[in-house]
């Protein structure tokens, strides 16, 4: 409860005086990208985020840098966009990308006409590819099913979406942008067709503030419809929940796609030391309550086992859901037929001329989306130079080094100071790593609570899901003065509630014991369900 208020007080003085050329709503991949793009063009930017970096779909996807091949059968424009951005991002943000390569494999029993069509479309596209002998594919990825009938190699890769957004936002901040997390966009002041002020509300304290602004970019993802409505405009967003499951070890070297029309559980994406298996697609009304369910997890395990049989007996660490913002009015029909392409809307026709919405799209195309939105803003304002993100590499930022599974252990094994204690034993996150994260949070003017540290590191993401390291982290943060009064209890409660969403649907087998130990400790001993808040 008290975690956020201190940094806000420090901020308040600045905020009251603050004017921003552009107010960007949403700090997902797109919003962070827009902020960086505009800041690099010399505009002053304020990023307003209701939660924290990547709270929505940007933090709830499989971290795939698409080759584009996935969309060949259904959406060729998106496919080509993906391919172009894929090539560009490898050069511009190599620190966020692992060039794993990807396979598309056809499984016995799937539609063979689609497989033929795929081959034709692939050879007409500019996606680099190679048809592969099934035996070669299995030699490359021994965990693949023995029931493969066809295989293609493409240039899929993986991208760490947290690192990507954190690096984007850090570069934006170093070019004068401001970031307010835990702050909701709740209203506007207008003069005729122009929004003159954005009204913001600090969620921890309820305080409101007004920011004078000449332009608003709505990059709120699944919440874009709500944000547009606050600004007096309309954005038809269709919310589609996608659920994914994290395995306890990395199942494959490269990205493995099932060669069929987009369907449930047709991809296995490595992410450092783990693999991510997904995805489902279910329309949802309210993106705030999109949690993974047992049924979705079961469906993923059953379907993906056709690709990798061992998945059926693999321990799952957690599940998570993201809500895709698909462009178009919600209603009947299959979400998968809605284009994965993006849309830039100016709302002039609705009588609001300086509000732009950028929605739809994918993580792979975030930069292009940001470029288009920034172009529109600059055109409207008649200022700013050309986009430079096609040629200027994304700098590595110190606060974004620890999101990748395996990064902290690598650092530890390559050398550490005597006395640098281990906070998270599952993921080997040490005190010095947390120290550096807290320092970067402070530098960015953000709160230094458990949730903020959790988002920027692997604490709580390993086998124990925070049962032990959450407690150790809280203890250590008290010792360092980062937590005071009873903020640790409310912080731990929030931290554990959040982890629980992902533990619950995978709680079978050994995970039942893990859940039991977790509850024995947090409820049985500490009574966290009882006394506080």
């Amino acid at each position: 409860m008290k975690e956020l208020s201190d940094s806000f007080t420090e901020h308040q003085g600045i905020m009251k005086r603050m004017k921003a050329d552009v107010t960007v709503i949403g700090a997902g991949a797109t919003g962070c990208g827009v902020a960086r793009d505009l800041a690099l063009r010399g505009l002053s930017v304020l990023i307003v985020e209701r939660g924290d970096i990547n709270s929505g779909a940007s933090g709830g996807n499989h971290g795939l840098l698409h080759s584009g091949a996935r969309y060949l059968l259904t959406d060729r424009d998106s496919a080509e966009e993906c391919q172009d951005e894929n090539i560009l991002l490898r050069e511009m943000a190599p620190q966020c990308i692992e060039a794993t390569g990807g396979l598309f494999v056809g499984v016995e029993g799937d539609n063979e006409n689609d497989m033929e069509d795929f081959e034709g479309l692939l050879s007409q596209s500019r996606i680099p590819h190679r048809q592969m002998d099934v035996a070669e594919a299995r030699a490359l990825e021994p965990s693949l099913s023995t029931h493969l009938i066809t295989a293609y190699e493409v240039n899929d890769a993986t991208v760490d979406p947290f690192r990507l957004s954190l690096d984007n936002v850090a570069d934006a901040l170093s070019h004068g942008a401001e970031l307010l997390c835990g702050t909701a966009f709740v209203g506007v002041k207008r003069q005729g067709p122009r929004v003159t002020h954005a009204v913001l509300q600090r969620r921890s304290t309820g305080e409101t503030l007004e920011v004078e602004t000449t332009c608003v970019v709505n990059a709120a993802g699944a919440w874009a419809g709500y944000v547009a409505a606050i600004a007096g405009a309309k954005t038809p967003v269709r919310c589609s929940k996608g659920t994914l499951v994290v395995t306890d070890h990395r199942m494959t070297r490269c990205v493995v796609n099932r060669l069929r029309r987009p369907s449930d559980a047709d991809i296995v994406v490595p992410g450092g030391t783990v693999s991510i298996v997904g995805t489902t697609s279910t329309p949802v009304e309210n993106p705030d309550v999109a949690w993974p369910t047992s049924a979705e997890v079961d469906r993923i395990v059953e379907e993906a086992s056709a690709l990798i049989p061992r998945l059926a007996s693999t321990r799952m660490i957690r599940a998570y859901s993201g809500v895709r913002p698909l462009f178009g009015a919600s209603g009947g029909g299959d979400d998968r037929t809605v284009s994965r392409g993006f849309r830039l809307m100016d709302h002039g026709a609705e009588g609001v001329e300086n509000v732009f919405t950028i929605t739809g799209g994918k993580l792979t195309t975030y930069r292009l989306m940001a470029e288009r939105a920034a172009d529109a803003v600059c055109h409207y304002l008649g200022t700013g130079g050309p986009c430079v993100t096609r040629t200027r590499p994304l700098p590595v930022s110190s606060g974004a080094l620890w999101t990748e599974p395996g990064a902290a252990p690598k650092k530890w094994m390559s050398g550490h100071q005597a006395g640098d204690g281990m906070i998270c034993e599952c993921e080997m996150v040490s005190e010095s790593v947390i120290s550096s994260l807290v320092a970067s949070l402070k530098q960015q003017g953000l709160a230094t609570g458990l949730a903020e540290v959790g988002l920027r590191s692997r604490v709580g993401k390993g086998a124990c899901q925070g049962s032990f390291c959450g407690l150790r982290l809280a203890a250590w943060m008290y010792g360092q003065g980062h937590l005071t009064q009873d903020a640790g209890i409310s912080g731990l409660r929030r931290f554990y509630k959040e982890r629980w969403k992902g533990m619950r649907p995978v709680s079978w087998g050994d995970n039942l014991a893990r859940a039991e130990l977790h509850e024995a400790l947090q409820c049985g001993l500490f009574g966290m369900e009882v006394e506080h808040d």
Partner: protein
Amino acid sequence: MINPGCTEGVARDPWTAPWDVVVIGNGLAGSAAALFAAKRGLSVAVVGSGSQLPLSSGLFDLVGMIPGESAYTTRPWDTVDALVQSTPGHPYGKLGAGTIREAFQSFISVLAEEGVGYQLCPENGRVITSVGTVKASYALPETMMAGATALEQRWKTLIVGIRGLKGFEASQVAQTARGFWPTLSAVEIAPEGLGRPGDLYAEALARELDLPKGRERLIQALRPHLDGHQAVGLPPIIGMERSREALEHLEASLGVPCFEIPGMPPTAAGVRLREALDRAFSRYGVATFVGGRAQVVTETDTGFSITASLRGDEKTLSARKMILATGRFMGGGLVGDRCRVTEPLLDLYVAQPSGREAWHRCDLFDPKGHAVNRAGVESDEQMHPLSEGGRPVNSNLFVAGSILAHQDWKREKSGAGISIATAFRAAESCGA
């Protein structure tokens, strides 16, 4: 580790001669059941895979609350009645207060013989935890007892952290609890010569405090910070085999009551308990076959034949009666696949909610608790496990502890009480 025990000097072949009772499971319920049965003069062997006891806080709860209520009870015996009334099938409902009281008394007297003292608190003792919350419990280890008085009287108390000991931060305890205990203060000390540099472990520290030299080092580091404090709270490190001696030494030298603060496992308090029970096994001639799990149990004319894999060796024991105290998911007494919960050793009927989606609620801290925690084996009043039709499975088979259905020990704060009291009844039934 195999200790075939000795039964009154009678030469017996531990592998072939039938035991009166074989207890499967070496946690709190299994250990208690074995000792209760041995005290009744029965020959007893324990087979287990080890034990989760080192994870225990050392506190023995009877009942803390009815799930959904917002505060700990100060009248635990009334709450036991209320719990039985509101929870059909609750294990306490099969026992009665008299049995539960007798079980607690008998169990703590066994531990007292091994130098581990417990005190019963008829209104539940309240102590501060390492995260600064309050925990109420029925039986407190003597090393934690002064903490209950200190909290009750709001003594001016110094919480002491040890530099390098992870998971215990004195300022966390003091700052979190200051709202209801304003006279708390915190200090971190780095006692010279105590523990090795780098990561410290509570268990190792506790063993160092078994020795006067280790205590002196702690006392020396602590003394300069004492001024005006009426009590000293420490992480659970006050001795392992000689905790009473260590506590008395600290209190005499510092001149104020000292107490341990329960916290994150594994704790010295849990290890201390495990070791005390192992010593009691020797004292009462309980044979232990640990380090593996019972794999197969078959019914024989005279009882049961139990095959266990013990550190790679396959052994078979025979038993006239058997007590199943294998715990829940942590202990392996229950297992769940994606569809249902089963009892893996004997395939006993497991009462359970239908479907995994119903096992757990969306909110971890939902006051109503999670339905899967009430899944388990049903029993009659003699602790015979019941079939789906409600009939005893076998007149010589008994069940005890957290594997039992219709209780949620983590929310009721009834774990130790259910284990000890159902173990007592199961042992009683074996002796009948």
